[in-house]
């Protein structure tokens, strides 16, 4: 791709000889000054730049002013910097939106919703504001204790994982670990999280379209990829979830996140003119070229051939070695600034660090995996395990000595300047010379159409079954609800010795925990709860309530273990289809607005986030788009981890309560899915009332009344009762007639399987039941049954007859079987 003009022979010779002389350096001038619109479009598509005509014209105009054509490296550099991946043009752009016929113009959806929520919450919190750095650095940062701040970032690596599940997921987790490492002056990673969305693994092989890997293969590859990187980095994977839908067939979703701690006096970072640019860690290779632009295209059956080079190759030990060095250098104040080499490689890392001052890079100094790379490839490669540090010349010797001792490669590749230009050379030849202002601020904005109309799905007409044993078994055995133990056990969730609540809980260590809790500092009981929420099926009805429910789920999971909603911060990760299609973008507008409404009502700021669009796969003129998928990750600071509770029933004779009201909200429920329906009555949310419930429950948990607490989500209360019972190794006698419910709930199946938000199943210490009831007296809460020694779940229905009566061992077996490979 690089040496289009040179004869093949010369290219082959060059490839064999790593060191190129100045004369051989191939920097191509791309003729765009006189190019027609059609030619500009062709240049963009031929070079996989993913720049549209408007953007190409802006580039051409810039170079016209400079009076010269751009080099290939300059074009690539602009394309990566302006990519959707790096600039979030859709979210920050202009949207002309029509909702049920009502028109409006939205100028910067992201600023109006996500950013505004955080801004408004921080203002309302005043002196109580817990945010340290939001939406600026590689990860969001909040206060942890007097000595440390906490950084958290969740990323996606969807496109690479579709082509190469192992490699894509491997470098996905490797990449997100570098985010906290490159936040402030470098956070020490303390945990990983991962959430995957796949097509059902039992899909018949003959139904598989060309160019798509079988979902089971993707599943196994992704799990192994994350496993081998996370475990080798020595970072515990403590929370996650798996979701299944046919539409993830061509585009599996791989979310990976990392949390870390940063000393409070290592927050400020700023590269200074004269500082040396030092690359630390891995060498640069041809893997990961065009990663950022590749993520902004739809996939098809040719993607594997055309874009496999965009997938990086991971080596966790190289990254671990770099981390070991950075933590030591951080303690010695050896550097001014740090960032990771992610999308856009050196071009983006150095460009970002030198945005306000200027930088000069000499590509021939960059250590390469092998020879033959064109200068633009060295500049843009997204090869893994590379960090860029800004080191004052005085500290260089100390830093290099540290690296030498631990066999870590560190190379001076240039210096920061005060020219406000980004200058790149290779063996003395000019490769790029761009104004920082144009590179970072030049991307044009233009309106995209978006539309959203209320949807109507068929409602199932089914009789209320008298006996719900079979229905419960079907829901427990559905992929979305079934045990994920096979995955969880392949991740080390104990390394670093900080785990307080593990992903698997209960008498046999196999119950599904709502949130994980770590106490990351030895000798301190201060901890962090980590949870997630995702509500894929609700988006088929309304993405507004899907987003609201995802936020509620993430928060109620954290509250269930003992986090106070006032100490919770959240992260958003949007994975969507092609936003150039108005209906996809309309879904995004609805979801974003819910994010603003619910987050502000809850007072839970967004501290970081990411979006991944174009998750569509083209097959013979049609595309499969993923369902709109919003992952909300929640993190709550826990003042004393000895007060947290797990989800398993603890003692026969203890009373069982249900907290929160059940509405007739069967739309998008797991129960409807097992019947083949979506329905329309999507779970909604009254955030003001919900917040009161959260606060009351936290008070009860902190005062020690609560022995077990489990949130009701997929599968509703029936699943929550069953899980708490079989995880605890005890039965329960429940009277459904006592469950707090809205007037519209008249059927037992609706009551037990509705997925209304903000509900919990709570086991209370018998001796403290009065105190518990007092704490909960102003919120919907009712005594509904008792934990029994007899290992059987019995539920009396609204008609006074037994609706469920099943042995807990049977229920557990049904729940464990589907994904136990």
């Amino acid at each position: 791709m690089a040496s289009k003009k040179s004869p093949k022979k010369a290219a082959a010779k060059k490839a064999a000889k790593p060191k190129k002389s100045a004369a051989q350096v191939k920097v191509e001038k791309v003729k765009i000054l006189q190019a027609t619109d059609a030619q500009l479009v062709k240049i963009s598509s031929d070079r996989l730049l993913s720049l549209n005509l408007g953007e190409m014209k802006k580039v051409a105009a810039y170079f016209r002013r400079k009076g010269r054509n751009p080099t290939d490296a300059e074009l690539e550099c602009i394309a990566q910097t302006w990519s959707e991946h790096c600039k979030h043009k859709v979210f920050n752009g202009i949207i002309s939106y029509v909702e049920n016929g009502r028109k409006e113009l939205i100028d910067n959806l992201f600023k109006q919703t996500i950013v505004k929520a955080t801004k408004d919450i921080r203002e309302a919190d005043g002196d109580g504001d817990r945010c340290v750095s939001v939406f600026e650095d590689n990860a969001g940062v909040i206060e942890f204790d007097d000595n440390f701040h906490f950084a958290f970032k969740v990323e996606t690596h969807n496109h690479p994982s579709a082509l190469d599940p192992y490699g894509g997921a491997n470098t996905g987790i490797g990449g997100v670990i570098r985010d906290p490492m490159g936040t402030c002056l470098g956070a020490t990673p303390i945990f990983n999280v991962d959430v995957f969305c796949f097509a059902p693994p039992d899909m018949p092989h003959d139904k598989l379209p060309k160019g798509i890997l079988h979902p089971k293969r993707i599943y196994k590859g992704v799990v192994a990829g994350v496993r081998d990187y996370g475990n080798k980095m020595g970072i515990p994977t403590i929370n996650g979830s798996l979701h299944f839908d046919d539409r993830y067939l061509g585009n599996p979703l791989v979310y990976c996140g990392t949390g870390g701690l940063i000393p409070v006096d290592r927050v400020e970072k700023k590269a200074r003119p004269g500082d040396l640019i030092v690359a630390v860690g891995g060498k640069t290779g041809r893997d990961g070229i065009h990663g950022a632009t590749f993520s902004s295209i739809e996939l098809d059956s040719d993607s594997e051939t055309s874009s496999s080079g965009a997938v990086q190759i991971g080596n966790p030990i190289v990254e671990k070695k770099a981390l070991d060095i950075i933590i030591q250098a951080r303690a010695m104040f050896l550097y001014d600034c740090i960032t990771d080499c992610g999308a856009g490689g050196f071009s983006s890392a150095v460009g970002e660090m030198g945005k306000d001052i200027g930088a000069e890079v000499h590509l021939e100094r960059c250590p390469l995996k092998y020879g033959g790379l064109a200068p633009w490839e060295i500049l843009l490669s997204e090869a893994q395990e590379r960090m860029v540090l800004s080191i004052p010349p005085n500290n260089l010797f100390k830093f290099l000595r540290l690296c030498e001792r631990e066999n870590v490669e560190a190379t001076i590749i240039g210096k920061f300047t005060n020219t406000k230009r980004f200058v790149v050379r290779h063996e003395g030849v000019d490769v790029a010379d761009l104004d920082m202002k144009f590179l970072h601020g030049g991307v044009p904005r233009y309106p995209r159409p978006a539309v959203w109309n209320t949807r109507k799905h068929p409602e199932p007409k089914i009789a209320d079954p008298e006996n719900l044993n079979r229905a419960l078994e079907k829901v427990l055995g559905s992929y979305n609800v079934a045990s994920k133990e096979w995955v969880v056990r392949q991740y080390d969730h104990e390394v670093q010795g900080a785990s307080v609540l593990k992903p698997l809980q209960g008498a046999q260590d196999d119950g599904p925990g709502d949130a994980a809790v770590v106490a990351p500092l030895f000798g301190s009981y201060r901890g962090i709860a980590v949870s997630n929420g995702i509500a894929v099926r609700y988006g088929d009805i309304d993405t507004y309530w899907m987003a609201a429910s995802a936020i509620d789920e993430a928060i109620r999971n954290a509250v269930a273990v003992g986090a106070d909603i006032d100490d919770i911060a959240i992260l958003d990760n949007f994975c969507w289809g092609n936003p150039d299609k108005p209906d996809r973008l309309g879904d995004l507008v609805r979801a974003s607005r819910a994010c603003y409404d619910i987050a502000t009502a809850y007072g839970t700021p967004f501290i970081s986030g990411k979006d991944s669009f174009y998750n569509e796969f083209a097959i013979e003129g049609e595309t499969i788009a993923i369902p709109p998928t919003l992952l909300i990750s929640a993190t709550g600071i826990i003042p004393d981890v000895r007060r947290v509770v797990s989800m398993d029933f603890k003692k026969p004779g203890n009373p069982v309560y249900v907290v929160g009201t059940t509405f007739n909200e069967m739309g998008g429920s797991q129960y409807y899915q097992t019947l083949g329906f979506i329905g329309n009555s999507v779970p909604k949310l009254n955030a003001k009332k919900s917040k009161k419930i959260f606060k009351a429950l936290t008070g009860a948990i902190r005062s020690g009344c609560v022995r077990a607490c489990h949130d009701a989500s997929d599968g509703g209360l029936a699943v929550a009762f069953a899980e708490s019972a079989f995880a605890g190794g005890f039965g329960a006698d429940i009277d459904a007639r006592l469950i707090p419910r809205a007037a519209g709930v008249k059927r037992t199946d609706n009551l037990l399987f509705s997925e209304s938000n903000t509900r919990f199943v709570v086991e209370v210490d018998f001796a403290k039941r009065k105190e518990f009831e007092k704490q909960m007296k102003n919120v919907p809460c009712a005594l509904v049954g008792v934990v029994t020694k007899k290992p059987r779940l019995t539920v009396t229905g609204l008609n006074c007859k037994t609706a469920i009566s099943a042995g807990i061992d049977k229920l557990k077996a049904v729940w464990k079987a589907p994904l136990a490979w």
Partner: protein
Amino acid sequence: MKDVRAIVLRTAGTNCDRETVFALASAGADVDLVHINMIANGEKSLDRYQILALPGGFSYGDDISAGRVLANELINKIEEPVNKFVADGKLVVGICNGFQALVKTGLLPGFAAKKGRSGMARPSVTLFDNDCGHFECRWIYLKNDPKSPCVFTKGVQRVITLPIAHGEGKIIFDKPETRKKVIANKQIVFKYCDAEGNLSGYPVNPNGSEENIAGLCNATGRVFGLMPHPERHITATQHPRWTRGEGADPGHGFAIFQNAVDFAAKEL
């Protein structure tokens, strides 16, 4: 009581060093965390320490096989100081990856001591891929042999619980005689068992290890290695079922470090 100095040796891919340092420090040792290259280049000496800990992790990515490259480094880069350390009767503990390295140097079970140039030579035991075929993290029970000469486990309760987290933890002997000798010498310090102390198969024995072996010591009982992680069970809240009223402070792993420090204070 005199000061006890412990060294936790780390290298590329070590990752349980922080909690191992904490465990030893909690037991009263003065602990240094040192990169293996600093011993090799003479910046630091093993002489000033009485306890050497090889922590868990994935040294050099466990490329080739788990602990193999680290074992080669111990043999080729710092053979003399390590041999002297062992010959002086000082204490060595290898946890998980550290155990894998000790086994692959031959220091455990230690039968090659007189062969070749040094105590380190061809291994007679290896740690191989788990029967389930992949890495697994779970809490298991261990039965300890009170008659074992191991100085790390004196007075440890009969059955304890610790987490394992490994992909290559299955003990295999090179020949039946080795197995016989290990058994005769009571070098099997820990066996995987259920909560009541009964031996059985997966998942009680999480990796398919011969004789359900989880930990081995050498004939003197001063070199000790185990796959489970005692440094991850020092406090009560690390216990997987502390919310159910199980577990206590200190956790079950603590005694192993306390025994080492107490022994070193008295005897070394």
